[in-house]
């Protein structure tokens, strides 16, 4: 690392989208739901560094990239390029920025203009930025991305190139303006495995040869070690873990990273890998509050200190309340199945439908009384009863700790016990109505 300032600093960046509203919402003048696609992301990119951002589809990684190149407005936070925040950019600064921050897109089959030859595609950015010596520069770049001899490729159109060759042209196009930063969005995911390695190796080489920094975005942890020294794992708009690549792959700390790493197939019939126990898919990033992003799928979610409960049983109670809060409990369907029109029968049916694990004592009676409220049609009371007893520390406070130097994990399992107890004690303090849940816990977090 040089002593210079970082090339790119991302400071608590947020990008929210407005969700759909229907006519009723408009009449009632309800605010449209905010989709928290990128929700408070911070990172720095040093000169000549390559950082990978890894996550499942829908985690916000592509939104992050589009926000970085100015395709989306910033909702909050800032991006600082070599000391100047983009919020202070004038038109000339933007042009300069766009020249120095280049993108390689996911799909080489659609990201090149089919009507342009390789020469034209590569020369276009030079035209736009008024750089001379075009022919020389184009040939030089073709050589760098190993499309040789240049004559063979210069006059071809994309249809006459293989996937790997197209992606090399895209890389060349990104490099031709001699940028400081390359943002790569799943650059090899559309390529056959036989060429993936070649393209990755080439990109890696170019980063070190040309003093370029890179943010590499991908869903694929298995190839990330070939391209980046640092990995940031993203889930629902936030980084949940950030560490040096090799160490993260060997010993993932966040339960989500663990699940991601453990779900990667190993090409070896003699190796007996355990399949992931995790189920479901990420929820929609709407109204997720300030708690841990992964809490609704986490296999290790932390129960309040003062209750004694089996992890899987607790998981079910938590999920059930999440369903209730998102109005996803299919009460009508269950009512249809139960033919006897009796409250206790309905309560039994709900319990059978959503709970496989047995609860005991106070846990059981709390659940039953909540389900009874639900059967009576009082969802809010049901939620409140469940929340009062079962609310987890994972729901209330945003965890973010440095587990080891250069290793950040956003998980209460890796915080000191002190902090956990404090947060846990505050957790039962949620008597507000369900609607103000998010703001309530923000305020709560700030109080600490």
């Amino acid at each position, binding site marked *: 690392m040089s002593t210079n300032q970082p090339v790119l600093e991302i400071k608590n960046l947020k990008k929210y989208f407005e969700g759909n509203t229907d006519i009723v919402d408009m009449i009632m003048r309800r605010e449209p739901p905010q989709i928290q696609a990128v929700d408070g992301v911070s990172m720095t990119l040093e000169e000549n560094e390559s950082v990978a951002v890894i996550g499942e589809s829908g985690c916000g990684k592509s939104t992050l990239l589009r926000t970085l190149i100015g395709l989306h407005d910033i909702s909050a936070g800032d991006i600082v390029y070599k000391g100047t925040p983009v919020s202070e950019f004038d038109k000339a600064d933007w042009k300069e920025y766009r020249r120095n921050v280049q993108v390689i897109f996911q799909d080489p089959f659609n990201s090149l203009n089919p009507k342009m030859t390789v020469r034209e595609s590569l020369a276009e950015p030079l035209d736009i930025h008024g750089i001379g010596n075009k022919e020389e520069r184009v040939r030089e770049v073709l050589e760098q991305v190993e499309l040789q001899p240049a004559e063979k490729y210069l006059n071809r159109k994309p249809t006459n190139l*293989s996937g790997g060759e197209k992606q090399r042209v895209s890389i060349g196009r990104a490099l031709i303006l001699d940028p400081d930063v390359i943002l790569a969005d799943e650059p090899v995911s559309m390529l056959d495995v036989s060429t993936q390695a070649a393209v990755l*190796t080439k990109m890696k080489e170019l980063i070190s040869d040309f003093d370029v920094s890179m943010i590499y975005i991908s869903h694929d942890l298995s190839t990330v070690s070939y391209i980046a020294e640092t990995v940031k794992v993203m889930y629902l708009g936030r980084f949940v873990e950030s560490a040096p690549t090799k160490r993260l792959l060997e010993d993932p700390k966040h339960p989500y990273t663990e699940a991601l790493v453990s779900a990667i197939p190993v090409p070896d019939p003699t190796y007996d890998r355990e399949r992931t126990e995790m189920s479901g898919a990420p929820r929609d990033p709407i109204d997720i509050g300030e708690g841990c992003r992964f809490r609704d799928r986490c296999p290790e979610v932390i129960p309040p200190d003062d209750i004694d409960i089996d992890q899987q049983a607790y998981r079910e109670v938590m999920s059930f309340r999440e369903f209730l809060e998102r109005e996803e409990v299919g009460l009508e369907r269950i009512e249809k199945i139960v033919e006897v029109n009796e409250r206790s029968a309905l309560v039994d049916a709900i319990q059978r439908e959503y709970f496989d694990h047995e609860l005991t004592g106070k846990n059981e009676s709390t659940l039953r009384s909540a389900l009874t409220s639900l059967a009576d049609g009082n969802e809010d009371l049901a939620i409140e009863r469940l929340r009062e007893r079962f609310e987890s520390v994972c729901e209330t406070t945003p965890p973010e700790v440095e587990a080891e130097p250069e290793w950040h994990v956003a998980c209460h399992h890796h915080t000191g016990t002190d902090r956990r107890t404090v947060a846990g004690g505050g957790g039962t303090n949620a008597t507000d109505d369900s609607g103000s849940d998010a703001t309530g816990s923000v305020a709560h977090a700030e109080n600490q």
Partner: protein
Amino acid sequence: MSDPLLEVDDLTVQYETDSGMLTATSNASFTISEGEFFGLAGESGSGKSTLAKAIIGGLDDNGQISSGTIKYRGEEIQDLSDTELSQRIRWKEISWIPQGAMSSLDPLQRVSEQALEIGNVHTDLTDEEIRDKLKETFDIVGLQESRIDDYPHQFSGGMQQRAIIALALFLEPELVIADEPTTALDVIMQDQIFKYLDRLKDELDVSLLLITHDISVIFESCDSVAIMHASQIAERGTTDAVHANPRHPYAFMFKEAFPDIREPKRELEVIEGHPPELMGDVDFCSFADRCPWAAPECRAGAPPTESVGDDDPSHMTACVRKEEAYEMYQSDTSPSDDGGGAQSIARMGEVD
């Protein structure tokens, strides 16, 4: 795992195109036994999907089986009419999990209605029997029986995928063909789906033909594998044998091209170019133009499929230079050789 369930013998499938007969599958042979999970691997353009479509008579209008046989339980089925296939084979004997399975449920029909449609076409079962069978299968794939009357949108993505598996299984087929069932899915979802596919093996004794470009999932889930390159089966055998002892250059290069999370810094193999489109008879090794060890004899005739001669009698390969090539490859990539990486990179320029 005993009697052969499906025997594909010397099968050639061609498509009629403006520029002549395009050969998608050339003299391919393999056998799937009862209860066996069989993987068919290869890059895009290798002909693996064509092969699977040929088995259930689902080729496009311009496609035809030019020669060879497909036997199901000893009976030749390649010449059966569409009606016969529908009445006797499809779904109750051989069912299908399509590529892009996530979008293959009809959004306007309840899952149970889709099952009834399938059941009414392919069996004489009553509606009630069909519903019961669907309920049983829902249970196996980890869905609540009460949800068979839900619409697809009421399921999450992973549950939809399981509903599709249930639809492929509820008529108790002997063989399920799954064409890239998890491609384009996130790893966690992929892992969940394979968890349920694994379970089928234990609980239903069903056979699976898994078609995928991802050899990692085949090595994990299948008993046997065939590796296909541009219409030809390059190598086949048990996954253990093919993994431990690959002989065809395409087989070992393809295998080594896959990253392994246990060795994050291992040099990945690079195979130049892409599978060629082949017109007319394929009377040469289709890998010859991409093979670093190709010799004139590779282009002189289609390589015969021969036993590798290891512990696995089913382990066969179609390479005339199988011994030399493997030895040269091994000496090139031995751990002491630091030039392995440089060599891979040097080979990177692609040939068209």
